[in-house]
């Protein structure tokens, strides 16, 4: 496994179990919020280790697509499969366990406002009654440039700092999949590149990555570093975009 990053941040991922051939699959999925159809007839299959961007106009359903992919929403029709299991067959505890294999960067970066940044970072460990390695936590905070803020409360952070923190929290438990919703929405270009580098590095470790973004420059930059595919939402459909980016 090649690794070009200077920071040995991420441990090699545990291999997917032998049976698992698809990380996330949509089969004829449609989704509508209270009647008005947002997504229709979406069929796709994300292979382990793939890197996808998801683009589309604001309000086209990118966040909705990701919510379907981490079982926050159930499809109106069709079937969503996570790690080869139909989400409609998952119990609530199964969903919780599945989410431990999925690092989620939420568009509005939700944190627990009464706990320090460091405690928020460790939250995925805390909720599964595991100990986080303080050294690893420090390294991760250092990488996203937030070491000096580890004792700060989330409301004190800037938008960009929240975004970096959200990404750090998503990767801390070494998930198989990372679903990032606008992870570079609030940061400068330099930080965007840094975040992209982290995502590329994670992808090289074998993790499946889906990034929803408006930022075409970011996609171009990524294409130079790693093999990616671009999904575009248009007219309620999710299509593979051409090479014209």
């Amino acid at each position, binding site marked *: 496994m090649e690794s070009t990053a200077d920071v040995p941040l991420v441990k090699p991922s545990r291999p997917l179990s032998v049976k698992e051939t698809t990380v996330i699959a949509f089969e004829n999925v449609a989704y509508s919020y209270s009647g008005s159809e947002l997504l229709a007839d979406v069929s796709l299959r994300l292979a382990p280790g793939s890197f996808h961007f998801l683009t589309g106009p604001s309000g086209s359903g990118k966040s909705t697509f990701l919510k379907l992919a981490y*079982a*926050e*929403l*159930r499809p109106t029709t069709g079937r969503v499969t996570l790690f080869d299991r139909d989400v409609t067959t998952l119990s*609530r*505890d199964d*969903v*919780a*366990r*599945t*989410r*431990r294999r999925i690092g*989620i960067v*939420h568009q509005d970066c*939700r*944190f*627990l*406002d*009464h*706990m320090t940044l460091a*405690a928020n970072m460790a*939250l*995925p460990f*805390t*909720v*599964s*009654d595991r*100990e986080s*390695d*303080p*050294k690893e936590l420090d390294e991760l905070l250092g990488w996203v440039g937030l070491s000096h803020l580890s004792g700060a409360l989330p409301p004190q952070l800037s938008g960009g700092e929240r975004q970096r923190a959200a990404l750090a*929290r998503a990767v801390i*438990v070494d998930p198989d999949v990372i679903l990032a919703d606008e992870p570079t929405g609030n940061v400068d270009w330099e930080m965007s590149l840094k975040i992209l580098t982290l995502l590329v590095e994670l992808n090289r470790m074998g993790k499946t990555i889906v990034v929803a973004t408006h930022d075409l420059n970011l996609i171009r930059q990524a294409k130079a570093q790693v093999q990616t595919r671009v999904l575009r939402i248009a007219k309620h459909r999710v299509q593979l975009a051409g090479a014209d980016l």
Partner: protein
Amino acid sequence: MKPPAAKPASPSTRAIRVVPSSGPTAWLTSFTAAAMTFLCVFALALSLASGRLADRWSDALARTATIRLSAPAEQVQVQTDAILLVLSTTPGIASYQAIDDDDTRALLEPWFGPDLPIESLPIPRLFEVVEAVPGYDSEGLRNRLTAEAPGAILDDHTRWRRPLAEAAARLRFLGLLSIALIGATMAAMITLAARAALATNIEVIRVLRLVGAKDSYIARAFVRRFTLRAFGGAMVGAAAGLAGVAALPAADAAGGFLTGLGFTGAGWLWPMALPPIAALVAFVATRRAAFQKLRELT
């Protein structure tokens, strides 16, 4: 080398920290538990005291009965023999005894003086019957006496004992009912407080679900907090209630119905059971509320 963790907290302590403590509901839970436990101590004292009363009355009165024989002079000896025969063949009687003239005179002496010509007076002859355990069938005995000795009347005190014992037993029941109602009220109040806390912390719960927390983990944070608060409040309430009961006038000094309202002997231990019970009620109520609320979320 691992740097030592600042303060190793147990998993459940950390579970409780993931939910911010919410002021007003915290106060409400502790206060409710304290007030309800305080009331419970008195309800408990009432039902224990009336229970003792009911037992004492039925015990003391049920053990003995009296048979009175009023018959024409020539019949007295015949019917006396008949009564003794009936008593000797009735199951459930521990002992019986005809009260002779000397004893009768002694019984009447306080009222009529020592020189009562008892032989010439139509004073009924008395028999004392002591019941065995289990007792005799008083209706059957009465029927047999009527048949064998028409002048005999069985007075087993039930006529005036029963209402008293029944009143005491009903008082005990009311006390227990009060305890149950107090418990149900506490459960309802704590459920409301827990629901309010869950609603306030809905964003926290969303974040926890997002990072893979199971419902049981999230519930634990709330349940632990409410259980501890209820326990703490109930301790205060029980202590105050016990102090109140202990401050009641002593039983012999007060007399009357209030005689013995309070705890005796091991009865003092009962109120000690209230805080753990309050904690259990809070535990169950909060857990139910939490799982109900969590099921509404994805």
